[in-house]
């Protein structure tokens, strides 16, 4: 037995040695990683860990009056109807935007993937322009465009007699969230388009040619050849879009700040409000907001796990198809 232990120890030793040697051999690579790791640690990893800790505090976020309360914040959250409403809105927003964005992106991608289409690069650039424009700029422009007083969109709708009186797109609680969903889709369809275009590149040109020789109509080619071949990508693109659709804080903060009457208060806006900008007369509650953040983060993590599984399946399927 003793011998075995020694052998095991020596094996372990050589293994560690080898690892150390390998790290030392690649020391320059590791050195280059350090700045990135520091930034990642300071701005992503540390806040994530810290928010778990904060979520157990009753703390304004200022001063040293933090009080450890255990799971009290979580218990309170589960009674908070604003929390539930925000949670629901976040996922409703996601369910409204993702399918729209994906179908729109797919249609545009199929059209723009046609090499014979003149100016397709120009169209691609145009559709991609909102993606690269800052959210704040888009928000300001959209607020002006959609204004019920002198916005050109209402001007058009009134002139065309499509509505009797100006629609307050961002100011009426019934439609504000859906207006924002529309703006969001308009801004981000370009990126979905790029994903789909990438997926379409996996369909070899010869397949279109073979279909052409077989007198298969374009619509049949899309339905019977292209869509089945790119379907595996839908899962990945869908999940990427879904996670992106839960990430709408800048757009909402720059347009409605969660209003009117909390009708656009999605999870992130709720967290922001409780943490930093409560109604007058209330104290900010960083601990409580952290708890909400943790719950929301965990639910996104579940989505991400689905995504990881789906990506792996797609890869495996692709590997089999080759």
């Amino acid at each position, binding site marked *: 037995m003793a011998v075995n232990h020694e052998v095991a120890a020596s094996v372990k030793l050589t293994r560690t040695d080898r690892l150390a040697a390998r790290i030392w051999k690649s020391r320059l690579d590791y050195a280059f990683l350090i700045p990135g790791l520091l930034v990642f640690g300071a701005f992503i990893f540390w806040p994530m860990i810290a928010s778990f800790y904060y979520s157990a505090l009753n703390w304004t976020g200022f001063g040293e009056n933090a009080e450890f309360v255990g799971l009290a914040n979580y218990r309170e959250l589960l009674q908070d109807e604003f929390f539930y409403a925000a949670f629901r809105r976040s996922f409703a927003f996601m369910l409204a935007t993702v399918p729209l964005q994906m179908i729109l992106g797919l249609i545009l991608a199929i059209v723009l993937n046609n090499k014979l289409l003149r100016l397709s690069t120009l169209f691609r650039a145009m559709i991609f322009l909102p993606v690269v424009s800052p959210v704040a700029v888009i928000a300001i422009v959209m607020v002006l465009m959609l204004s019920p007083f002198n916005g050109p969109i209402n001007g058009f709708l009134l002139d065309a007699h499509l509505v009797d009186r100006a629609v307050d797109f961002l100011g009426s609680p019934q439609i504000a969230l859906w207006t924002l969903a529309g703006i969001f889709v308009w801004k981000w369809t370009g990126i979905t388009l790029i994903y789909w275009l990438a997926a379409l590149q996996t369909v070899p040109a010869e397949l279109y040619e073979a279909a*052409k020789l*077989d007198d298969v109509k374009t619509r049949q080619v899309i339905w019977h050849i292209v869509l089945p*071949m790119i379907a595996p990508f839908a899962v990945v693109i869908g999940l990427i879009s879904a996670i992106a659709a839960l990430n709408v804080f800048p757009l909402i903060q720059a347009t409605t700040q969660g209003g009117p009457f909390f009708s656009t208060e999605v999870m992130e806006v709720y967290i922001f409000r409780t943490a930093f900008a409560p109604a007058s007369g209330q104290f900010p509650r960083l601990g409580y907001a952290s708890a909400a953040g943790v719950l929301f983060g965990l639910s996104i993590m579940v989505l991400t796990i689905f995504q990881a599984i789906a990506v792996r399946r797609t890869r495996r399927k692709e590997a089999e198809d080759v």
Partner: protein
Amino acid sequence: MSGVTLRNVKKNFGSVEVIRDVDITIEEGEFCVFVGPSGCGKSTLLRMIAGLEETTSGTIEIGGRIVNDLNPSQRGTAMVFQTYALYPHMTVERNMGFGLLMNGVSKSLVKEKVAKAARILQIEKLLDRKPKQLSGGQRQRVAIGRAIVRDPEVFLFDEPLSNLDAELRVATRLEIAKLHSQLRGATMVYVTHDQVEAMTLADKIVVLRDGRVEQVGAPMDLYNNPANVFVAGFIGSPKMNFVDVNHGQLPDGRVLRLDGPNAASVATIGFRSDSLKPADQGNGMISAKVSVVERLGDAEYVHFQTPWEQELVARFPPEAEVGLDATFEFELSGKIHFFDANGRALANVMLASGAVAKPV
């Protein structure tokens, strides 16, 4: 009535002329091979016949109809792609029948046609598989099957064997030859860069270079009577030997006596590996030193270097046991080819017997 005729066919990609004034006539039922080095335009020409590339000018006729403005599907052609172009998510059966099904042909008729093609190609057992479950050779058969099912007047093959390994390539080559005799009357146009494929399969070979037709003819025609240095060098394996001469004088000063009215224009003489016969020391036309020996079993190809550092190859019997660095004297016998300064073949030239003079 389903031959293919190309008249003054040209193709430009932007300002680049890739096909220059090509005239080719392919008879009905003929197996015609377009051969040439990469970039010669052979695939482009095939794709123009298929209708996958537009023709810049000139006319393409299939079965007596001008098809320039017809869609690919209306031309009566079927194409087998180098990459097979099978639909990866469909079974073999559906791959073969897909085109017909999409065009409203009844399911039972499609099934019948697919079964018939599968029988011809002996892939009946593979009908339920997907392409990824097939070997390269099997995929190739399915691709050919998809063409057969369409019942085309003209089969177009775009380098169909180049993705197969050497052994399978030889086997599939034979299959395609058999298929041609089986599908009597079907015109086949076949593109390859491999002159062995061209020689073994073709009724007619079209040798292309830089978008031009260099020569058209039956395989042995091209082998025996190449029209120019390019064709002479391209057809036949190993490559033909070429030696530059100036009024019969070789670079080392020996003089070959050439007879005939065109003898004075000869700038290059060409001869195949089996035309080099060892001669007694001092009596040869060419002397050369062994540099590499390739043993193929049934023959030895011995590569030589001449005193003026040119490579020549000679065929020796298998038991020859030629040693490296040995020096040989050769005389030329059999078919000798003569070319002028522009590389064109010259007729009416002969090598006079006992035709060598010592260096002056």
